[in-house]
């Protein structure tokens, strides 16, 4: 069985960490990732940019593009894609392809800050 682990934290709090504190945490996390990788159990790992960089696509026949942090608390995270695009414009067009096939909901486009496709390499 594959499981995804989604990381939640108050963004205001995360932004309050110093670079040194953040780096130290990443080192600790990479140790855990390394263990999982050596056991052959680690899939892709991604760190997303802050929500301020997000763009939203409202699903439907004619998808609507909206800026910014996700505000609709009645919707839950049901899945995700990682796509490779040369620009935000292209990512929006790609997301619209998906949005047109879904009658409801929102797709959030968020640039990926750090990505490791097959687990961490140290």
């Amino acid at each position, binding site marked *: 069985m594959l499981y995804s682990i989604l990381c939640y934290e*108050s*963004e*205001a*709090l995360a*932004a*309050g*960490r110093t*670079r040194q504190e953040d780096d130290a945490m990443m080192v600790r996390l990479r140790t855990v990732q390394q263990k999982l990788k050596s056991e052959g159990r680690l899939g892709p790992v991604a760190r997303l*940019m*802050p*929500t*301020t*960089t997000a*763009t939203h696509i409202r699903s439907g026949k004619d998808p609507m593009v*909206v*800026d*910014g*942090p996700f505000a609709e608390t009645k919707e839950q995270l049901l899945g995700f894609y990682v796509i490779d695009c040369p*620009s*935000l*414009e292209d990512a929006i067009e790609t997301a619209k392809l998906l949005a047109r096939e879904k009658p409801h909901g929102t797709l959030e486009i968020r*640039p990926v*800050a*750090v990505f490791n496709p097959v687990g961490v390499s140290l």
Partner: protein
Amino acid sequence: MTDMAWIDATLTAARPQVLGALLRYFRVLDAAEDAFQEACLRALKNWPVKGPPRDPAAWLIFVGRNFALDEVRRRSKQTELPADDEIVTDETEDTQTELAERLDASHYRDDILRLLFVCCHPDLPAAQQVALALRIVSGLTVKEIARAFLVSESAMEQRITRAKARITAADVPFDTPGAPERASRLSAVSTMLYLLFNEGYSASGGNAHVRVPLCEEAIRLSRLLLRLFPSEPEIMGLSALLLIQHARAAARLDAENNIILLEDQDRSLWDRELIAEGLALVEKALRHRRPGPYQIQAAIAAVHSQAAEAGDTDWAEIDRLYEILESLQPSPVVTLNRAVAVSKLRGPAEALAMIEPLAAKLGGYFYFFGLKGALLTQLDRPEEARVAFDHAISLANTAAEAAHIRLHLDRLQKDSESKRSA
């Protein structure tokens, strides 16, 4: 047990929202600050024992408001008071939190904006605006702010007290602002955040290391503003500009605190994560096709950040962006900056011709004479270059700026000596 470091960070992060809401209730800054202070004390006492509330900001708003209302009652001696610990009881905490949430969800955006906005009242000089924002919104101590501004604690205390007195007299309206009022508040707040950043970035005096926190605070507040106003391209531009500029912090000074110019910086020291976030925001902003000065400046910083080596810089694009900036926001300083791009594209003579008419307006500006000296040096006019550099030194704001110009003068000196001996 709740981790004290977590509580501390939570109180700092919640400060703008909580203080903003308390200011809306009490309309007096000092009263709001006292109530916030009391709420924090109770949090420090309460949270480690009972665990953190589901929504810390709502908890603090509620407790702060109750405290202040009780103060009023205590003074008027009309009502029996509950004991200290009964004010927030376990059974009702969740209901109270929900109530506070409902009261505040619709307001908090304008609350925070108002809190920032009272700090940048047009009557306040720029230095006072920034000091006040650091004290009120960021919650830095007077001592910390004094250290960052390199003035004595008592001088800073005075500056902040005077600023507070002025804004109390100024009477900022507390109604929910309409769209035009909101836009003008946003613009004033953006300018103030940019000033705050620049206070840390260009170090208008003294040791640069002390000032990095000012840049980081400006970035924190700009991200906060962007979370509140996610569709404002100029706020995206402002955030992007600050992020990309700050990304170069580690490369801007050497171990002896000497300035390293952009073209000489070790680009491997640039913070790629901050740059990537800045670039993402520039791209997002430009999609709106509502260009503004911050977006264009961010786009210029973005072009620099994308050049692997100084020699790869796309100066034609930078020149084009400065041209747009000149039309959006005509200023001799913008023209001065454009002249750098022009000197790279079309040579120093054309750039010099461009900046010479600015002499009257920029006669007190360090960078004007620094650039003029550099262009004259490139044109092999050492005597005039020396005069310009001497002038620049007399206008230098920091020891590092003066030292940088002295480097140019030394080079001129060596050149003329080697010519004489040849």
